[in-house]
């Protein structure tokens, strides 16, 4: 998959996944890398940035499989950012599709 596509999309994917389900770091990395090939280590800097920007918060939760894990959760701000990004994404993809001749009304 083209590098240019992936660039802006990873953040959108992270926010969307977190809205549907609060995840711990590894879980998030796992879900994304199943669908898109990424350098997994960069998810954590991304999460740190989102946390500094106020889009996500973290909390520790007990785990049956070992020490407590750090979970990530969207804030109001994060939900808003996600909505904005999805709007942009939908606009972008529908425009591209129509240029590719996906618009059958042409």
């Amino acid at each position, binding site marked *: 998959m083209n590098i240019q596509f992936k*660039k802006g999309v990873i953040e959108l994917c992270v926010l969307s996944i977190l809205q549907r389900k609060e995840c711990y*770091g590894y879980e998030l990395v796992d879900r994304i890398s199943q669908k898109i090939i*990424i*350098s997994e*280590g960069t998810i*954590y800097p991304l999460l*740190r940035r989102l946390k500094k920007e106020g889009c996500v918060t973290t909390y520790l939760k007990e785990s049956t*499989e070992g020490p407590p894990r750090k979970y990530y959760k969207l804030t109001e701000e994060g939900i808003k950012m996600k909505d904005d990004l999805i709007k942009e994404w939908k606009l972008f993809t529908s425009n591209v599709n129509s240029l590719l001749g996906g618009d059958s009304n042409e």
Partner: protein
Amino acid sequence: MNRNEFLDKLEKNLRGLPKADIEDTLFDYSEHFTIGFSKGRSEEEIAKSLGDPITLAKQIKATNFIQSAQDKSSVRNITKAGIACIGLGVVNIIFIVPLIALVLAVVGVLIASGVVVVASLIALIASAFSQDLYSSLHMMGNRSVNIFLSLGTLCFGILLSIATCWILDLFYKYILKYLKWNLKAIIGKESV
């Protein structure tokens, strides 16, 4: 690379960040190794999938410094942010040299306007209030004219300083924007 080598390299390259941030970051990657290992992956495999710890550390530092520069405007903060981004290859060096020259020029004007303010203040006091100062400065000409002129240059100097401060503030904002934008582009690129 195994887990300890990865975490060591990461920690070394994170130096310069606040201690809390370093510990936080190490916690994240440690946890990642722990969980991955419990799922049957080897340390080498996990380290490889995470990517180069030096690059990751640089990204984390750059992000952190940009945020600091945003939270508190200061020459130190914007310089740290700029240097971190240059280290990441995020900034085009050719762009930097004329930019620094421009900033120094504006600062020069600011200093000059400060000098103008002080000098015209002295001239004004000398012309309007102090005969002794007036003669010791060997000022010549009509005293009223001198008062008028020095008042004029005083106002000019003050306006100039205000204008240059405003320009420098604008520079700060735009440099920060540029760094953020480039960093997002680079981190996006590195995610693949």
